[in-house]
């Protein structure tokens, strides 16, 4: 997504109670990323199982990886870790904060809302399918677990394959009562590559998809399957003429819940030479004017689950060119 990057560093909070799988997810992310350079603030290096071959340098509270990523321990406190990353923000594409098992992800995300150097990229909260209902019966931790659920933009029910269907249904209902504004995903096996969950799609894939779209205008689900990961699909939508703002907004608000992220640069008919950055996480989105960009064309990237409709579906392409 290089073309539509802004100078602010996308800031994602990864929350979830102890044992929900945050560290495992981060391990996968750091080991698999190819083009996206993540700066990750972690609670404890000891738990991170980073491939030794990937470690380039280990200096006190930071570990630099050969793939351009960096891990920074929060042992010295959150603010000092954050400051350390912000000092070299230009070296990274994304910042992720692994919240401690009891923190409120919303309060951490407030930093990105305030700091112009950061742009909120959603709070992803993991729910441990095998423990969640027990946690709600434990008065010591119930409130912390529910606060995390309430503050999530994307809820990922983890370890779903280790529990039965009726438990899963109860969990889903509970989550929906607590937070009906977020996207809830069910993870029934280890996440293959969590990159798309954080809004990252390798640029190479984007470019290849662009070419594909020219060759095969049908853009079927099979194509998605070939070129993204089997748990997440993505699609690129374009429009060469300015788009009517209200048409765009009604499209954006009616996107199905299977679309978990979206990001794009939009040109509206009301001010055709100004472009807007649109960003969607879970069920909420943001539109802000882009100071750098100008032009009449628009482009968005959508990332969704495997249930996301194909891009020839009008629900998906909306005001954009039909693929």
């Amino acid at each position, binding site marked *: 997504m290089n073309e539509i990057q802004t100078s602010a560093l996308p800031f994602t909070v990864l929350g979830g109670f102890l044992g929900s799988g945050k560290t495992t997810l981060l391990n996968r992310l750091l080991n698999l990323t190819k083009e996206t350079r993540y700066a990750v603030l972690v609670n404890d290096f000891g738990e991170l199982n980073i491939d030794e071959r990937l470690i380039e340098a280990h200096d006190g509270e930071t570990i630099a990886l050969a793939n351009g990523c960096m891990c920074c321990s929060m042992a010295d406190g959150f603010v000092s870790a954050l400051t350390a990353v912000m000092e070299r923000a230009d070296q990274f594409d994304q910042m992720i904060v692994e919240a401690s098992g*009891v923190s409120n992800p919303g309060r951490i995300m407030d930093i990105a809302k*305030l700091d112009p150097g950061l742009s909120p990229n959603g709070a992803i909260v993991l729910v441990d399918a095998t423990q969640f209902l027990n946690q709600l019966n434990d008065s010591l931790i119930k409130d912390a677990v529910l606060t995390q659920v309430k503050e999530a933009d994307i809820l990922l029910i983890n370890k779903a394959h280790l529990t039965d269907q009726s438990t899963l249904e109860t969990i889903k209902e509970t989550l929906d009562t607590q937070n009906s504004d977020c996207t809830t995903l069910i993870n029934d096996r280890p996440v293959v590559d969590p990159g798309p969950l954080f809004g990252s799609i390798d640029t190479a894939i984007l470019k290849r998809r662009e070419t594909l779209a020219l060759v095969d205008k049908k853009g079927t689900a099979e194509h998605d399957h070939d070129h993204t990961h089997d748990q997440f699909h993505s699609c690129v939508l374009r429009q060469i003429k300015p788009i009517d703002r209200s048409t765009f907004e009604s499209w954006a608000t009616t996107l199905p819940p299977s679309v978990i992220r979206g990001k794009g640069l939009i040109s509206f008919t009301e001010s055709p030479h100004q472009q807007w950055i649109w960003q969607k996480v879970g069920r909420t989105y943001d539109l802000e004017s882009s100071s750098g960009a100008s032009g009449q064309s628009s482009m968005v990237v959508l990332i969704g689950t495997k249930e996301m409709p194909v891009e020839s579906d009008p629900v998906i392409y909306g005001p954009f060119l039909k693929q």
Partner: protein
Amino acid sequence: MTNSTIIFAAKTILTMNSYQPVATHVAVRDGRILGAGSLDELAHWGDYTLNEIFADKVLVPGFVEAHCHAMNGSAWDNTYVGFFDRTDPDGTLWPGIKTLDGVIERLIEIERTLDDPNQTLVAWGFDPIYFDDGVRMTLEHLDQVSRERRIMVQHSNGHLLNASRKVIELAGITSSTDVEGVMKDDSGQPTGELGEMAAQFMAYKVTDDVRRFDGINTNDLWTFAKTATNVGVTTATDLHARVEDQNIQAYVEATTSADYPLRLVPAAGALTMSIQDGPSHVAQLKQHNNDKLYLGLCKIMTDGSIQGFTGRLKWPGYINGKPNGIWNLPPQTLTEMVEAYHAAGLQMHMHTNGDEASELMINAIEAALHKYPRPDHRHTLTHCQMADEAQFRRMAQLGICSNLFANHIYYWGDQHYSLTMGPDRATRMDACGTAKRLGVPYTIHSDAPVTPLDPLFTAWCAVNRQTASGRVLGSGECIEVQDALYAITLGAAFTLHLDHLVGSIESGKFADFAVLEDDPTGVPAEALKDISVWGTVVDGIPRPASQQNP
């Protein structure tokens, strides 16, 4: 090694040593106590020099403060604007400011003395909770001080601050800022009052000339020692130390100076280390120890504070209906941490404000003891403000000590009565009487700089249990003057595993004394806090307080 003996004569010496509770003379050799008694008795040690500078003073064991922080010293780099009187390390009394206008006046005075327009003015200790009219500080108030200067007024609770218009502008905070902790007025404009981490982070980011608390240096430790000497303290903890090399170096450098007048007990903050590496790291720190440095203690943070509504309470919770407080780590992780440090043979002081936090730690220690039986561990619940009788009974059975936050009764007792606990449970806060009755070893503390370092004042709180408004909060928990004196000497030393070295005036111990102008057992209990402190004796050397040379 010299054999020269000095015998100090005093009006009275309270030894805290049961076989000789009162004496008139104490003999010192090589920085240690030979014995106490009459001059005739002590003459048996051979030749001596008689020192009569304390002939009209009272000597007691040097006070031991088991919960304070060495950063207490650096707070005075900034302007104090608190409600209560406070004395700085140089012995200057800063009268408490009773109105918001008064605070603004003091800030205006300080602003006039600043030559560099780019210097941030930082004030601390502000607490509008005590103002009669409940008025809050706003941007307009700070405009009277300066519209151009960056000003930060830190509240005494450590969780809030007021920033000036310049800071708010630089931080990009406006009416459209929608994050928790940015207080707004009725018209939706930010008032400059900032709570929560994010809002404060932004304010600190734009005041980059302000020193962050990023560890301790030797200067801080000297200022800290000065404050300690002024109030008779000769052994003090730094009860949440960071154990990086530079900090350890500062401790070593200060304590190896013969002039340094304080024994330091830094407690390593366990939450700044991984559970895997922390215990062995802390154990290794002991190699740096000397007669004035005692590394090896660990601090575990569990919950928040009661007046900030972040302490973890058991049912029925806060009386005003606020939701339960926060854990610093998942309870399960805290339990694992206790087991790991206990298994490594280390001693822990656990911060527990609410009764649910105390319960979690009592359970964790009990479980660790089943797995790794260990006599005389002296793990200590510090603050332990809400513990109920059943918890104290378990603590007694399990050998757990308590360090009760007696100063809270005075500073926040009225708020606990009306806002946090309610009249019933507020009376059981910091229950020294129960600890004594049920046989839980206990001491009392200031948590300086949260409240001022001053053990005689802390003792006064435990004896009188009087709030700032004059209400007696739970007279059943009051203790005797003698008990309170024990708590701030041997009682505290016991919780630090140092009672064989300090805490009483007894043959073989360090010659550490607090030098008082009056006998604490000879004045009315209400006057305990008003006794003047001449200074201290550490290693047999007199150390006058700053107030002796104003």
